[in-house]
């Protein structure tokens, strides 16, 4: 029964967007109730569909758009878990935002934009064809731009929004190129080989794409998947397009939690998971996914160590965790087949819960002390017990704390250990241990930076005498709910993997699921992630709480390593100065100006042609009255005459 209303999942938030945008001012608290109700509706429908189709069903609806393209809905296990997560997290964050944004005058605009964002994100998730996926993907990017620049009167926010838009655009262009190349290939094989679409199927639908895989030349398939991955790199902030995500923290914290932690940035991972059958047939592309993901996980974690802005630490953490998800798709995809999607998506979901929670806690802290700078916080534990406790839970989840032998732990423990074990399995089978080493070092750094953040914010003595206070209930209750998920979501692991494993079989694609002998690795491998996690916690405790190790000699402007990390590997300078100023302005724009000024103008002006025309112009210019309306009337009159003449001429 719920399946018939699947389209409402998207349409309800769209409706809320329109109503809030135009009438938000007339409702209490900027019309927040409308998006909250709409998204609650989306969540209820998503959940109802989940109950209906569990364990082996899908919902497929499609209508023709034009020629061989369509609009449609595909809700399979992969989509339905994502739908529930997006609508649920979005719902909690909207409720939280009622408290967080209560002092802001732009509330109707805020709630309208987040509502549109939620609609677009849900549309990404339930698209049944890659073109519709791309369109929703672009709307999501637009909302991200609008919300990063929500406080557009701040120049840094406006610049960050622009950067986010331009950098993700690089990825989007690659993605679009991939779609075009896929379309060309599909047209070719439809004309030249025995491949044909089943009746009722359309060209760019995912199931048609998967059915066409055996007919596409392997090199073409590799290029297509790499271009798709290019889009994912842009959206998910993977190296080298990661720079926009930390800057995006200029937006409201709720936006960071919703868009730049839980949902939009995971769209890239979702894209790779969605088109996973294609990636599996292109092992080279999968290898790129693994390495980019693994490198990003480590690379971003190093920068997270030194940031002083509480949100930037979390932003680098997000980039790093997204790297883990890519790493899972790449490494586990290579050796475990379809199981990789389950592993990656499980981390995606548990990450969505605990990272949204971390951001909302950070928002609660910022709301209380009025600054983002960790160095000005401290000693908040006594004043903000709920925030501090829930944030500690989230930090435990991010650090992946749990007990391997007993199968007890936080959500992050189950999801992250599976990724690290997958990377180990990959190393075991292929002999290439680099992704595994990356993932272990990144796990250590993760634990260090997140507890550094926690100790700096909540323990010790207050470094500033602000009257910090616990946030109102409307903010703390979402925190508590998310904390429960961060604690207990992990226990759904076995069921989750089983549910997602069948996903591509439902779509008519066979991907081998290898159980892999080494998936039951030695005790040391099993315990290593938790050992490095605890090690990180201890290191942070000694440095930032007990202050046993004196960091002041290491953390100085003179230390080149610290300098590089603090300057984020000079990536911002590279993109704004080298690419922006030198390349775009200096080379491209200046050479264009030279061509225009010297060559075009030089040839036409100052010669006999121009002088004759000028003197002729002196005579004719008297026709110009300078009144625009005269010109318009004469033009219309002329067109009218022309039509009459054509009629007379018998056309």
């Amino acid at each position, binding site marked *: 029964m719920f399946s018939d209303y699947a389209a409402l999942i998207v349409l309800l938030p769209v409706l809320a967007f329109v109503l809030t945008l135009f009438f938000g001012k007339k409702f209490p608290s900027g019309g927040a109730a409308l998006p909250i109700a709409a998204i609650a509706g989306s969540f209820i429908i998503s959940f109802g569909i989940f109950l209906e189709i569990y364990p082996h069903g899908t919902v497929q609806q499609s209508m023709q758009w034009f*020629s061989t393209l369509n609009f449609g809905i595909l809700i399979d296990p992969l989509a339905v878990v994502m739908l529930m997560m997006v609508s649920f997290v979005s719902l909690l964050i909207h409720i939280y935002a009622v408290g967080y944004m209560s002092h802001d005058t732009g509330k109707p605009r805020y709630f309208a934009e987040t509502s549109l964002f939620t609609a677009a994100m849900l549309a990404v998730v339930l698209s049944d064809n890659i073109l519709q996926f791309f369109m929703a993907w672009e709307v999501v990017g637009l909302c991200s731009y609008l919300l990063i620049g929500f406080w557009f009167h701040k120049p840094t926010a406006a610049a960050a929004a622009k950067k986010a838009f331009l950098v993700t655009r690089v990825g989007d262009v690659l993605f679009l190129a991939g779609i075009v190349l896929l379309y060309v290939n599909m047209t070719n094989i439809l004309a030249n080989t025995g491949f044909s679409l089943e009746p009722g199927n359309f060209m760019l639908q995912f199931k048609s794409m998967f059915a066409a895989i055996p007919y596409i030349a392997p090199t073409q398939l590799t290029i297509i998947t790499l271009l798709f991955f290019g889009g994912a790199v842009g959206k998910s902030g993977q190296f080298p397009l990661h720079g926009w995500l930390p800057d995006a923290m200029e937006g409201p914290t709720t936006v960071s939690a919703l868009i730049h932690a839980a949902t939009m940035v995971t769209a890239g991972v979702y894209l790779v998971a969605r088109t996973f059958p294609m990636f599996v047939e292109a092992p080279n592309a999968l290898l790129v996914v693994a390495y980019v993901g693994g490198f990003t996980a480590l690379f971003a974690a190093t920068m997270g160590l030194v940031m002083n802005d509480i949100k930037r630490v979390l932003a680098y953490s997000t980039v790093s965790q997204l790297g883990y998800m890519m790493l899972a798709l790449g490494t586990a995809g290579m050796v475990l087949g379809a199981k990789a999607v389950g592993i990656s998506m499980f981390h995606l979901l548990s990450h969505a819960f605990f990272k949204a929670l971390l951001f909302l806690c950070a928002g609660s802290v910022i709301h209380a002390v009025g600054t983002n700078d960790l160095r000005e916080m401290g000693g908040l534990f006594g004043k903000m017990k709920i925030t501090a406790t829930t944030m500690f839970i989230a930090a435990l989840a991010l650090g992946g704390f749990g007990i391997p032998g007993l199968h007890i732990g936080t959500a992050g423990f189950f999801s992250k250990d599976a990724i690290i074990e997958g990377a180990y399995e990959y190393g075991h089978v292929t002999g290439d241990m680099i992704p595994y080493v990356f993932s272990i070092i990144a796990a250590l750094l993760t634990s260090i930076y997140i507890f550094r953040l926690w100790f700096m914010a909540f323990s010790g003595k207050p470094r500033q005498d602000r009257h910090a206070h616990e946030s109102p209930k409307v903010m703390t209750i979402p925190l508590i709910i998310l904390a429960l998920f961060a604690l207990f979501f992990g226990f759904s692991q076995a069921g989750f993997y089983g549910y997602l494993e069948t996903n591509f079989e439902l779509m008519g694609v066979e991907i081998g699921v290898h159980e892999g002998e080494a998936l039951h690795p030695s005790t040391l491998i099993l315990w290593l992630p938790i050992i490095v996690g605890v090690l990180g916690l201890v290191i942070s405790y000694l440095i930032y709480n007990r202050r046993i190790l004196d960091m002041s000699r290491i953390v100085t402007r003179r230390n080149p390593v610290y300098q590089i990390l603090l300057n984020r590997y000079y990536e911002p300078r590279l993109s704004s100065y080298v690419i922006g100023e030198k390349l775009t302005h200096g080379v491209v724009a200046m050479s264009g100006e030279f061509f225009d000024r010297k060559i075009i103008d030089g040839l036409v002006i100052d010669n006999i042609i121009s002088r004759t025309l000028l003197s002729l112009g002196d005579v004719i210019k008297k026709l*110009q009255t300078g009144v*625009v*309306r005269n010109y*318009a009337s004469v033009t219309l009159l002329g067109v009218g005459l022309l039509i009459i003449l054509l009629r007379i001429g018998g056309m």
Partner: protein
Amino acid sequence: MSLYMYLLVAAIIFTIGAYGVMTQRNGIKILMCIELLLNASNLNLVAFSSFSGNATGQVFTLFSIAIAAAEAGIGFAILVALFRVRDTINLDNINILRW
């Protein structure tokens, strides 16, 4: 509904737009009237395309809409710039290029 109803609506919109372009002095109003002219022709294209079962007209309209958007963007940018310099967008006063 017959094709003529669509054409009639388009013709009415076109006439309103043409009237506006010829009589208004405010730059913004003129730009809005030009949009009306464009959309009337878009409507015609879509109507013909739909009734003849040929998608070309619709594709053409999409291009036309995109170009109209660019045109409106540039037009309004010019008007904003003009307003900053001359403190007016009454086009009757903008005639220094006259001879």
